[in-house]
């Protein structure tokens, strides 16, 4: 099975040959890969070198933490790659951004109103959690759509709080 794997903008062509061999950009390496204790911690031995990694299931892709550094990955097989290429993949993200609560907390204040124009980096609201006031900012320019919460509300994790269109 062949995959095109992108790590922080760098592409690797990876083929899984059998249970103990993969090729990476044409070079065959011996791998011994195990989940350590049913946890999202993996031990990988590649040609004798020992690595340990956490793998986080991000919203869209896997994030891999190796030796104190986080790598964002995109793994596609050839069919997925063709599909994305055909659809002009990699295009600028448009659509609606939904601001979800990154953690449970208390909405201290809302800094914008429905219909207001915002720039990337503008504070949308302040959420208090773990005794800290956390400013949640807009990831891009746009217009505030619906606001689903009010100051003083307690919100659960992942609660949709507002949208920016």
């Amino acid at each position: 099975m062949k995959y095109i794997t992108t790590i922080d903008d760098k592409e690797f062509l990876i083929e899984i040959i059998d249970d103990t061999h993969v090729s990476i950009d044409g070079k065959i390496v011996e791998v011994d890969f195990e989940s350590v204790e049913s946890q999202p911690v993996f031990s990988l031995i590649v040609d004798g070198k020992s690595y340990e990694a956490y793998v986080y299931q991000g919203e869209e892709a896997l994030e891999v933490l190796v030796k104190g550094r986080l790598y964002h990955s995109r793994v596609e097989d050839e069919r997925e790659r063709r599909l994305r290429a055909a659809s002009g993949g990699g295009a600028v993200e448009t659509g609606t951004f939904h601001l979800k609560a990154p953690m449970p907390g208390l909405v201290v204040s809302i800094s914008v109103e429905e219909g207001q124009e915002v720039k990337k980096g503008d504070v949308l609201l302040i959420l208090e959690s773990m005794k800290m006031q956390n400013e949640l900012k807009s990831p891009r320019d746009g217009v505030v759509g619906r606001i689903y919460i009010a100051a003083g509300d307690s919100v659960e994790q992942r609660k949709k709080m507002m949208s920016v269109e």
Partner: protein
Amino acid sequence: MFNKVLIANRGEIAVRVLRACRELGIKTVAVYSEADRQAMHVRYATEAYLLGPAPSRESYLKGDKIIEIALKSGAGAIHPGYGFLAENADFAQAVEDAGLEFVGPKPFAISSMGDKAIARKTMMEAGVPVVPGTKGTNRLSDEDLLRLAPEVGFPLLIKATAGGGGKGMREVKNMDEMPSALSSARGEAKSAFGEDNVYLEKLLIGARHIEIQVLADKFGNVIHLNERECSLQRRHQKLLEEAPSPVMDEDLRQRMGEVAVQAAKAVNYESAGTIECLVDSDKNFYFLEMNTRLQVEHPITELVTGVDIVKEQIRIARGRKLSFTQDDIKIKGAAIECRVNAEDPYNNFMPSTGLISHIVLPSGPGVRVDTGVYAGTEITPYYDSMISKLIVWGETRAQAILRMRRALEEYKVVGVRTNIPFHQTMMDSHRFMGGQYDTRFVEEEFDMEEIAEGKETFPDIAAIIATLVKHEQTERAAHIVRRGERDTSNWKWLSRWERLSK
């Protein structure tokens, strides 16, 4: 002399105090909120009593109830830890009025130092240099502060008079930012301390945050245990401390130590306390505030001086003389503390909540972990995000850094994101290694990506791992579709991890 102590706190510091009591043969009483029934401090104490629901105001800040429990359980003293009621003079007074010993200074010392405006005034009168800022001890309205701000000069800091731990503090670059910064500082102060009074202080650029630990007994003996370097901060929260400070010299150490002792004597201090100062690049130092309680970062001082500060606090509260004189206090080697917070360093240090499903603590020579969590602890949004302190000692600063690197790599926490990668990057940073940093370093100059760039990276390894995980997910999904066929996958790591990461 008391033989049972109530610990009016939670988390790692409650466990730290419990350990000291155990080692002194003293019985312990824990108090806990509904969120903390299974917390380590509840399980390790001799006795444990419920305070109320999870929010601090309904539990750990309920001074009356805590005193009532102390009396009911026969505790002779209350140790407040840090935070919560630790610097509340009214509480200390109420403890005294109930006939109990407060493990800390007298209410007068707390209130003199607890109101930062009064503390500044007291120090100025004692001839100790303070950071320029608003004077006097009256409550200042928003109008007053807006008027005084230009006199203090920008950039400046708004600080809560009841402040501590960076709460209720805001940096302000110019007049335009004043109103909203005032409002959010007051809001945070109100939420953290129950009152929203603030004052202004000039923001010194290029300065280091250095503090002196003092110990004082009930007989007027005061000594200092030298300095801690605490400049590595983010949003005025300390992240990493070390002792000794890389910029300290013997002369400055002695001058600062003397002033710290003098400051403590000025308020008839007893117990452990800390004089926080800013030190500029010309080695001038300015009094910032005095913390009239045990400090989060006390262990680094313990490791380089050999003094067990918590045991010493308890001995002092029991009416014993200090076990040490100033001449006994020497610095041996170097110590570093990394605060391990449930925060995502790759997402603006956003707090991370959840269940810690797996944890591996570093250990071995020269490594100490102070923590209240274990595999199974739920990290809730009710309390602060510090889950553990990793402290190492080395014969030299360089050895301490090498040791901290290996300890950080050993430290595994699964279930919440932590700032361990931040600390790992810091240990690799040339600025840190060279001891060349100030209070602005983390926020203004420290860039994880940039520091990592000079280092060996492992994108190929990450690529292989991501691909193998994705491959297995795909195979498994296909397998589910073809349910009934024999599982031909040989991957040994078919496991519950994905369930957990959902």
